[in-house]
């Protein structure tokens, strides 16, 4: 059972507090993704778990043991770095076997475990190559292989796909997901890419300014964001947030909570409609055709720009007057503090 438990974790660099009290409960075998904008502290939090950074306050438990003062190498974690951190002077075989070698694992056992990991990741033909002779995707697999060989209790991934091109990223994403299914080991994954977070995670942790903004399944975060920040961070294109100051129903049949001052509508929950049914009217400023859908940028009469995903039919001309209809069951209301109501 390798649960990871964070209680009031804090990290200061000098006078600057980067992590400001994070509480988190990660179950055994769970795939947890930390997301958030640059500088929110997600990589720092991962490094605190790994032991590469010292914890300033709070408690970190791995597998039921308090590990604040346990060195990185004895926490039972393996990390895949953004840069892969493959030792350039060692072959793939030696890179993968490095950790076993320094732990004085006998050569025969080392060879067996490297071969097993290489077979899992289809790396056998590459074992005698040097990192410089590998493509980006192959390096990534070697980095994962190096982590697997140590048979860790917890895998840590620090933006492992950010150096790959778009196509390879999608492919590697599926390989990591498959690996998790096969190994069923606890995995903690850091990314700023919310698509990666949505597709991989059992549980997403949205971080903002060193604090947890919301924790939940991808569907929870998408359907029931607790704050405007989460509402806009999860989902692509991001949610439209419109003021309710003018009054009047945003959609027929929708009940507006008394404390709400703004409403969030995802672009996919808006459609072009008849003018008599809607209070949302504006002009099309840009129509981006992406193949599957068209993304319309509509400038509302109030001045805000609203994004609309049009699934079918010809897109209106730029400058055309349109009326928008919102799905009344898919509206999100927020109060003055940006909290969902």
């Amino acid at each position: 059972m390798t649960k990871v438990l964070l209680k009031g974790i804090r990290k200061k660099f000098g006078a600057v507090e980067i992590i400001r009290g994070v509480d988190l409960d990660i179950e055994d075998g769970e795939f947890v993704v930390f997301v958030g904008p640059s500088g929110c502290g997600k990589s720092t939090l991962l490094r605190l778990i790994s032991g590469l950074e010292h914890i300033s306050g709070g408690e970190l438990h791995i597998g039921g043991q308090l590990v604040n003062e346990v060195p990185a190498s004895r926490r039972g974690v393996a990390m895949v770095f953004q840069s892969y951190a493959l030792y350039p002077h060692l072959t793939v075989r030696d890179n993968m076997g490095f950790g076993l070698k320094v732990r004085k694992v006998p050569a025969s056992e080392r060879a067996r475990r490297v071969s097993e990991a290489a077979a899992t990741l289809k790396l056998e033909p590459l074992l005698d190559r040097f990192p410089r002779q590998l493509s980006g995707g192959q390096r990534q697999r070697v980095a994962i292989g190096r982590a697997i060989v140590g048979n860790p209790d917890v895998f840590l991934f620090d933006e492992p796909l950010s150096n790959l091109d778009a196509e390879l990223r999608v492919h590697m994403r599926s390989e990591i997901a498959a690996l998790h299914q096969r190994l069923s080991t606890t995995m903690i994954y850091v990314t700023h890419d919310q698509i990666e977070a949505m597709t991989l995670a059992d549980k997403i942790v949205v971080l903002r300014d060193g604090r947890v903004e919301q924790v939940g399944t991808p569907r929870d975060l998408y359907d029931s964001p607790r704050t405007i920040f989460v509402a806009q961070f999860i989902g692509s294109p991001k949610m439209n947030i419109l003021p309710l100051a003018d009054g009047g129903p945003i959609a027929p049949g929708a009940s507006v909570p008394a404390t709400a001052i703004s409403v969030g509508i995802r672009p996919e929950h808006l459609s072009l409609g008849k003018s008599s049914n809607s209070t949302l009217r504006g002009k099309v400023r840009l129509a981006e055709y992406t193949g599957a859908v068209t993304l319309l940028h509509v400038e509302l009469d109030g001045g805000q720009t609203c994004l609309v995903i049009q699934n079918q039919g010809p897109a209106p001309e730029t400058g055309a007057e349109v009326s928008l209809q919102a799905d009344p069951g898919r509206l999100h209301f927020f109060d003055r503090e940006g909290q969902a109501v």
Partner: protein
Amino acid sequence: MAGSPSRDNAAHSARAPWLTLKTREMLEAWLFVSPTFIGFLIFFLGPLVAIFYYSTTEWNLLSQQATFVGLRNFENALLENPDFWHVVRNSVIFALGLVPLNMALALSLALALSRPFFGVVFFRTVFFAPVVTSAIAWAIVWKFMLQGQGGAVNQMLAWIGIDGPNWLREPNWAMAAVIVTRVIKMVGLNMILYIAALQSIPRDYEEAATLEGASRWQVFRMITWPLLAPTTLVIMVLTTIGSFKVFDHIYQMTGGGPENGTLVLAFYIYQQGFKFFNVGYAAALALIMFAIVMVLTLAQVMLRRRDME
């Protein structure tokens, strides 16, 4: 009306329209490199060619008369003159003492000073300052400090009850003294090269190795040291060459003494050429020194290449 106006302007503005663009660019390039190239021809290639000629002559600088003697000067040095092999032996001892000591000290300092901490710039400056200090001034100061009686070094040794020798006057100690003082003077340069190399090694390697259970010593031995190999080779080659070329230090501190105990090759060449005026013999010695340094450098490069494979 063929061609755009801008193209017409470009054609008109060309100062030498009869030359092709490629030729014009080539001329410009030569113009830029010519100051260095001319200097190279006059001050480097010229003397280098001349020295081959001088080495085949018996030429006393005072008589202004050069007689062609073929390879006689080389025979004299390599087969007949016992001084030559004594001098080569001294140079080898100097190099064997200086190169490992310099490199070990430079690497140790670099490892200590490659990461930022309060005062790091001060310490780097302290260790680098001797490199840019005048070699003669450095040697004079050390000569005073190493005096047998009243020298600062012996005074300090006296505080802890050690009766220091007359460092530069005793054959057994003079070579050690010139090696150590030379190391202290030049170690800063290699330290800076090692610091630059250490700082170019991504921190991720060390972190990944630490996570995998490597101790600090294992990280150094298995990751850092192999990654420093190209820099180590450059430093080893440059320091070896520098140790064979050492002149000013010996000239000022010991003058080759005592009992020729610190008479090294470069200083011997100077003595033969400009003290005894045997220019032909000195030229032959210089070529032999060139060959020795070349062989050592190639050997180091080949060893490194074998290690890489």
